[in-house]
């Protein structure tokens, strides 16, 4: 242990290990939904590693990109296909675990005081992750890459005054083309991952400071921890975590090897062609719900755009929409009903988002979009009802 002493004198590692691991306490009454933060980190690591290997052979050039991905990486490089499958499935599953992580936070009221900063930094991470996925999806330069980017960037045209100029500024040209590819590449491999790393650090730091929430929403006091109401992060919490991770990896690699098609759209194996619009253009599945809110207001593009922006941003304001002193959904029957309606609606919108927006589907999309917002609008009302009830001494 000479080396440890030497290191301890210089970096105070023993103290660090105590503060970070062995004497950091997590509540006991948490379920495996609290493992999803760590699962996100695991997927993030997988994305970083597979991404670096892809980067070694990928060529960010409109003439070379498609072949560098579909020939060089998929066919010529040893296990290149494994890295591409892993990266594509990883990106998709990232959003699955993110959605579950966020839903956990919503159900148990983890966004409430004192965790507002945890929530806001988490939300910023979600936006950054969405931007990373969106820019990354253009890189293979297939038909769906191209037309999804074309469609989504066109949305900005509607912004008053600066819209049309903004679109050209984002694309680097009048249409999506080589300049767009190279700038999306720069964002995807450099700026966005850097920001993700920084905000993850802040997010985790904030979680350390305020501690984890739990099923019942009560906070651990110092005495609680001593009395053994909490479990130490290392080794107790992590022992369970490793098991959850192993099970998750079985599921993950099953997808990578045998069920990867949902993450790699067929149409994207046709090279980008700006003269030929595909019959159906849709984003990756994790954006479908928001996309459906955009299309839901089928009678007015402007309204749709506003609703779309709201649907993406309103989540950040949860701590201020929901002011009820009761934290966990476990003890809030009204809230729980709204929560499950919201989850069902999100799923409904996701499914509708891929279907052609015509006839009945268009109207269902409209209804679904309205229901999406009802959850958020109901929160202040539920809060008032609950406050009254508490004041009434119940």
């Amino acid at each position: 242990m000479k080396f440890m002493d030497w290191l301890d004198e210089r970096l105070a590692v023993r103290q660090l290990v105590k503060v970070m691991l062995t004497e950091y306490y997590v509540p006991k009454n948490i379920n495996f939904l609290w493992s999803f933060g760590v699962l996100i980190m695991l997927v993030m690591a997988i994305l970083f590693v597979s991404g670096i290997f892809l980067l070694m052979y990928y060529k960010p050039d409109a003439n070379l990109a498609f072949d560098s991905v579909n020939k060089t990486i998929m066919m010529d490089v040893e296990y290149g296909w494994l890295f591409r499958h892993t990266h594509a499935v990883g990106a998709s599953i990232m959003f699955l675990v993110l959605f579950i992580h966020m839903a956990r936070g919503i159900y148990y009221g983890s966004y409430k005081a004192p965790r507002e900063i945890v929530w806001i930094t988490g939300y910023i991470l979600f936006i950054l992750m969405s931007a990373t996925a969106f820019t990354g999806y253009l890189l293979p330069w297939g038909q769906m890459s191209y037309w999804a980017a074309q469609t989504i960037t066109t949305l900005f045209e509607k912004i008053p005054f600066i819209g049309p100029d903004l679109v050209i500024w984002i694309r680097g040209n009048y249409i999506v083309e080589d300049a767009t590819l190279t700038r999306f590449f720069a964002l995807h491999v450099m700026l966005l991952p850097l920001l993700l790393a920084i905000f993850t650090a802040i997010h985790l730091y904030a979680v350390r400071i305020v501690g984890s929430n739990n099923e019942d929403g009560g906070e651990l006091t110092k005495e609680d921890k001593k009395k053994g109401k909490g479990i130490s992060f290392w080794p107790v919490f992590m022992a369970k975590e490793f098991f959850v991770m192993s099970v998750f990896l079985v599921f993950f690699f099953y997808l990578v090897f045998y069920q990867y098609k949902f993450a790699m759209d067929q149409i994207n194996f046709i090279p980008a062609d700006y003269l030929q619009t595909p019959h159906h253009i849709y984003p990756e599945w994790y954006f479908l719900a928001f996309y459906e809110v955009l299309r839901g207001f089928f009678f007015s593009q402007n309204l749709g755009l506003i609703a779309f922006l709201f649907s993406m941003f309103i989540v950040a304001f949860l701590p201020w929409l929901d002011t009820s002193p009761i934290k966990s959904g476990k003890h809030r029957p009204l809230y729980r009903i709204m929560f499950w309606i919201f989850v069902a609606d999100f799923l409904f919108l996701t499914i509708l988002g891929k279907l052609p927006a015509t006839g009945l589907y268009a109207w269902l999309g409209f209804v679904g979009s309205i229901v999406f917002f009802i959850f958020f609008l109901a929160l202040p009302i539920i809060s008032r009802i609950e406050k009254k009830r508490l004041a009434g001494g119940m």
Partner: protein
Amino acid sequence: MKELKILLILIVLVLIGYWGIEPYAHSVMHGEVKQPDHTYKDVPKNIPTTGDPVKGKELFTTNCASCHGLKNDGVNPGMDIQTSITSFKVVPPDLSNIGAILDEHFLAYFIKNPQDATKNPKFAMPPMAQLSDEDIGHVVAYLKSVTKKDLTGKEITVEACGRCHSIKYQKVLSDTPKEPLKEYLGKVPPDLSVIGKAKNVEYLETFINNPQNTLPGTSMPRLGLTKESTEKVVTYLDQIADPHRDQRNTLGIWVIGYLLFMAGITFAWKKKIWKNIH
């Protein structure tokens, strides 16, 4: 147990979502793919498909060899590539093995009326009105007599599709350059290197059987491949698009087996650590 209940809810939600965005969405977007018709029901079957190969060769030399070569029998096309591109915007294919690739009734009817047989009114080969039905029988007999047996998927694909399509990743370039093809067909036919990933096997079979089945009005001609040739072509296209399938399937078993083993170990460790925690 509570944890299992939560897991069950997650699984049900994920499965509903998956069903919606994959099988259900695809069935709504693409509808049902028609079944291929390998007997070519609409093609008249009254033109003979047998006859005298020797007479057939004579007829071939006088009527077909001005445009088509037949390498198997040492026949060179009467026209060089440049001339045929200027005349037809597409290079007439070498017919060495066409007798084995195409359905014989289709072939006979095709010689008589290429535009109707291929469902492409602008098809570049003129109808052979000078040939009687009996003559056509001789030509078909000749074409069948010279072909190689047991063609591979690649050979069939190159001979039947190679005048229009490239397969870049297999270093196969179309006989005809892009510009004349675009003039002739309205668009450059897509490269077939990874078409097996862009389309599934059932779709390809139906499409090749009759392009009008899935793309009404398309300029790709119906080619009249036999069931066997179609299947070989589709298998070939599927296999070149996904060359590492076997490696993937085997490696997958090892990786998942290893992870299951890890899950067992980590579960045991968790049990041990959590024994005293209630």
